[in-house]
C-alpha cells in the first residue's frame, strides 16, 4: 500500500511538473495474489505489485493523457511531458467544459487488513479444502482464490483529492464429473467471509446432480435464473442501456422512456458505489462522488448514469460514474444492485410446472443492442423442472433472447442475493435469483 500521504506527494510532484490550465492525476495501486487450481491441485499461483499514475492535462480545450507505472521523478516527468505534447498536437474538443470541482465524498470502510495480508499458505489451505472435498466425493475441482488490496486516488488542480483503500477476496469453483459440472462463487472485502467448505459443497452437490444430462428440445421455457446468471443480465444493462452516452447516441432502450414502465413491476435496480455491502468505490475516476442512482423503480425507468462529459451535454450534474480518462466508452454503472424479493429460491421452484433451472450463462454477446438481444450458452448445472421439482439434468442450451423482455416477464424474485466482483471491469453487483417466463432457448449443444 502506498498510503494517502505518499500518493499526495506523487500528485503534488505532477502538479509541479505540469504547466497546463488544468491537471488531473489518477493513481491506482494494488497488491494482488491469485491461487488457481485444476484437476484438484494448484497449478498456477501468482502475485503482483503495481501502481500506475495517469495524468490528464488540459490546455484550453485540448486534452492529453499519459500514464506510467514508473513512479520515479523521471517517470512522472516523462508522463507529464508526454501528456502535454499529446494535448498540444490535437485540435480543440468543443464538448469539453472543465475538470470537476471538489465535492464532499462519503467515507466507506472496505479495506480489511487481514485480506491484504492473506498469505500464500492461507490461500493454499483454503484451496486444499475444495480439492480434498472434491476427491472425497469423486469429482474434479477447478477454480481460483483471489486476495487483493487496492488504492484509488484522484487529484486535480481545482482542489479535488479523493482517496479510497479497499480489499477484495473472491473464490470461484467449477466441480466436474465425467459428464456434468457445478459452479459456485463468492466475493467479499473480508477474506474471512469466504467459506471454502460452503462453496465446495454447493458446487459438488450440483455437479453430482448434473451427471448424465439428457436431451431437451430448445424452445420457450419458464426459467429459474440463479444469481450467477442474473449478474450477466445486469452487466449488459450497464453496458448497453444505463449509460448516458448510450442514450445520447440512440443505442439504449432507455432513450425517451424515463417515467415509463419498461420492466415487470417487481423489478427495482439502482447503482450505489458508496454502499458498504458492495466492493465500494465512493467516487469515480474523475474524483466526483458517486450518487445513488435509481435506474428502474418497480419496473419504471427512472434514471441513467453520467460522467462530466455526458452531463454537460444534457445540462445536468455528473452522477459520479466516469471511467478513467480518456474514455470512449462513456459512464458506467459499476455498482449495481437489484432489489431482492420475498420468496425463497426453493419456493420459487415449487411454482414452476415445467421449466428450466439455469445456474449460469457463458459467452454472452450482443445480437441487437436496442433490444438488449443477447445470445449465449448455459453452463455448469442446467436442469429440467417439472411440477415444482428438479427432475433431471439436461444438455446445455444456446439462448437468443432479449434480456429486456426477460425482465418484463419476472414472475418472482428470491429473498437471497449474492455479491459479485467482475474481474474485467472491476465492477461489483448484488443480485437475487429470478423466475422468468417466456425465455427463448434457440439451440442445444452436445453436453
Amino acid at each position, binding site marked *: 500500500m502506498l498510503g494517502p500521504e505518499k500518493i499526495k506527494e506523487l500528485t503534488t510532484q505532477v502538479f509541479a511538473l505540469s504547466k497546463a490550465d488544468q491537471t488531473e492525476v489518477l493513481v491506482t495501486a494494488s497488491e494482488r*495474489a*491469485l491461487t*488457481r*487450481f*485444476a484437476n484438484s491441485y*494448484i*497449478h498456477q*499461483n*501468482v*502475485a*503482483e*505489485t*503495481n*501502481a500506475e499514475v495517469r495524468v490528464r492535462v488540459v490546455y484550453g480545450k485540448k486534452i*492529453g*493523457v*499519459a500514464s*506510467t*507505472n514508473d513512479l520515479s521523478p523521471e517517470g512522472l516527468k*516523462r508522463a507529464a511531458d508526454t501528456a502535454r505534447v*499529446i494535448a498540444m*498536437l*490535437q*485540435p480543440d*474538443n*468543443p464538448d469539453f467544459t472543465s475538470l470537476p470541482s471538489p465535492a464532499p465524498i462519503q467515507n466507506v470502510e472496505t479495506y480489511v487488513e487481514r485480506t491484504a495480508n492473506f498469505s*500464500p499458505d492461507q490461500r493454499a489451505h483454503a484451496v*486444499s479444502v475444495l480439492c480434498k472435498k472434491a476427491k472425497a466425493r469423486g469429482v*474434479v475441482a*477447478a*477454480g*481460483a482464490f*483471489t486476495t487483493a488490496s487496492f488504492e484509488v486516488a484522484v487529484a486535480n488542480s481545482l482542489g479535488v483529492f479523493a482517496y479510497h483503500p479497499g480489499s477484495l477476496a473472491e473464490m470461484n469453483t*467449477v466441480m466436474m464429473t465425467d459428464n456434468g459440472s457445478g459452479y459456485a462463487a463468492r466475493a467479499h472485502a473480508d477474506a474471512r467471509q469466504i467459506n471454502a467448505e460452503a462453496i465446495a459443497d454447493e458446487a459438488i452437490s450440483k455437479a453430482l446432480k448434473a451427471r448424465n444430462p439428457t436431451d431437451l428440445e430448445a424452445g420457450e421455457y419458464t426459467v429459474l435464473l440463479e444469481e450467477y446468471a442474473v449478474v450477466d443480465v445486469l452487466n449488459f444493462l450497464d453496458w448497453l442501456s444505463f449509460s448516458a452516452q448510450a442514450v445520447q*447516441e*440512440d*443505442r439504449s432502450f432507455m*432513450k*425517451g422512456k424515463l417515467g415509463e414502465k419498461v420492466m415487470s413491476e417487481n423489478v427495482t435496480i439502482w447503482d450505489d458505489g458508496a454502499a458498504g455491502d458492495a466492493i465500494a468505490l465512493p467516487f469515480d475516476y474523475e474524483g466526483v462522488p458517486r450518487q445513488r442512482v435509481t435506474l428502474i423503480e418497480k419496473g419504471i425507468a427512472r434514471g441513467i448514469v453520467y460522467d462530466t462529459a455526458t452531463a454537460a451535454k444534457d445540462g445536468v450534474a455528473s452522477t459520479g460514474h466516469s471511467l478513467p480518462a*480518456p474514455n*470512449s466508452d462513456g459512464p458506467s454503472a459499476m455498482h449495481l444492485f437489484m432489489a431482492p424479493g420475498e420468496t425463497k429460491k426453493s419456493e420459487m421452484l415449487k411454482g414452476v410446472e415445467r421449466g428450466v433451472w439455469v445456474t449460469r450463462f*457463458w*459467452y*454472452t*454477446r*450482443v*445480437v441487437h*443492442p*436496442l*433490444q438488449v438481444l443477447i*445470445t449465449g*450458452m448455459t453452463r455448469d448445472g442446467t436442469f429440467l423442472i417439472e411440477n415444482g421439482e428438479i427432475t433431471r439434468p439436461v444438455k*446445455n442450451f*444456446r439462448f*437468443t433472447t432479449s434480456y429486456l423482455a426477460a425482465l418484463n416477464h419476472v414472475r418472482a424474485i428470491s429473498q437471497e442475493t449474492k455479491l459479485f466482483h467482475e*474481474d*474485467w471491469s472491476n465492477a461489483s453487483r448484488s443480485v437475487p435469483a429470478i423466475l422468468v417466463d417466456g425465455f427463448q432457448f434457440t*439451440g442445444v*449443444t*452436445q453436453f
Partner: protein
Amino acid sequence: MKDFAARALNQAQMKGATYADIRIVTRTTQHIAVKNGIVEALEQNESQGFGVRVIANGAWGFAASARVDMREIERVVAQAVAIARASALTKTRDVNLGARIEAHGRFETPVARDPFLVPMQEKIGVLMKADAEMRRVPGIKVARGEMEFQREDKTFASSEGSFITQSIIESGCGIVAMASNLESGEIQVRSHPNSGGRNQVTRGYEFITECRMPENAQRIAEEAVALLSAAQCPSLDAATIILDGSQVALQVHESCGHPIELDRVLGTEAAFAGTSFLTPEKLGNFRYGSDVINITADATIPGGLGTFGFDDEGVAAQKTDIIKNGLFVGYMTSRESAQELKLGHSNGTMRADGWNRIPLIRMTNVSLLPGTWNADDLITSTDDGIWMETNRSWSIDDKRLNFQFGTEMAWEIKSGKKTRMLKNATYTGITPQFWGACDAVANENSWIVWGTPNCGKGQPPQVAHTGHGASPARFRGIRVGVIK
C-alpha cells in the same frame, strides 16, 4: 538487464528453486480515437516490470513487480519461491518441463515506418478525414475511428542458460459508422477493415496507409444506412452460406484456435475459459472438417499479430500442422503440457500479457490455408445462398462445439449473383459438422492475415493478440437466422 536477470535467477536457485525464469518487459501503447469530428482520446501509456517464475518443491510460483530495481529482486524472488512451496501443498506430481532448453537470440519486428515516429498530426488527420467522409452520409448517427500502436521490449532469461531479447511492434486501425432509426427500433453498424474497432498486425505505420480508411469511409457509411431498411435475413434450417475472409478468421479463432490449446484440453482452464471437445484420444484420428480444410499454427508468418521470435518460455517460433485435409493432427503446446501427452517438445505457443502475468498457451497465427477457388467463383457457382460479411456477434460453448455468429451485412445470392442486402444475419452450428460442410475455400489471391487484438483467457485475466490467415469459404446446409 543481463545483470538484473542473472541476479534474480541466482537468488531463486539460492532459495531452493529447481527452475527459474525471468521476463523484464516494457510496453508502450499509443491510442487515438476520433468520434463525430472530435478527438475523443489521445493517450500514451507505458508499463514496465518484471516477473519471476519458479519451480520449488516440484510446484509453480510466480511473483511480479513494477519496481525494476536490484533491491526489489530479493523480495519478489522470495515471494515467488514461497508461493511455489504453498502450491506444493496440493500437488499430485512434480512439474516436468522435459529436456533442458538453452536459447539465445534477438527478434525485432521489421517495420518500414516506426509508428511511434510518425507525426501525431498525420495520424489524427487520417482519422478526421475518414470521420468527415462517414458523417457526410445522411443518416449516420455516430462515426468513430481509432488507431492503436504498441511496442513491447522484453528480455527472457532462464536458469537453463537462455537469454533472449525481443522488440515487437504492432499497428492497428479501424473505422465504424453507426446508423439508427429509433422509430423502427433499428440500429446498424458497418466497419472497415474489420469489426471490433480495428484490424491489427505486427508491422509499422505502412499498414495504416494500406488500410485506406478515408477511401472506404463513405462506402461503409452508405452500407450502414442502407441496412436500416434492408430485408431481415430469413430463418432457414439448411442454407448455403459464404463467409468473407474476416468472418472465416474469427470462425477459425473460436472453433479451432481455442479447442487446440492443450492446457484447455488437459483441464487447467476448466474454471474460466472451459475445456475442449478435442480430447487427446482424437489426436491423429478425428475428422475435424472436410478434405479442403487445412489449418496451421504458425508464429513465423511475416506481419501476423501472433508473430514473434521466441515464446515466453524461450522456445523458438514454429509452424505446426493442426488440421491436415480435414484430419485433426496437432495441438498448441507448452513445455509442461507437451510432456504430459508425451509429444516430445513444445511447439512454442506460451505467451504472457505483459510483465505481471504468467505465460499461457495462446494462439499464434492459426490460419485456414488457401484453397483453390477464385473468390468470385464461390458466388457465381452458388444457385441459392447467403453471403455474410464482417463479424457483429460471436458466442461459443465452453467445449467449443455449439457456436452462433452474426455479421454486420449479408447478401442474398440467387443464380450466382448477389441480389439484395440482408440485415441481422446470424448462423449457428456444431464445430466439426460445420467444418465438415465446407466445400470450397478461396485461393491465396484473397487470403489475408487478420488480427484479433482482444482474445481473453486466464485468471487473472489476460488479453492476447492473435493472427488468423483466411480467405472466403463456402459452407452447405447451415442453420441461418434466429431473429424473428
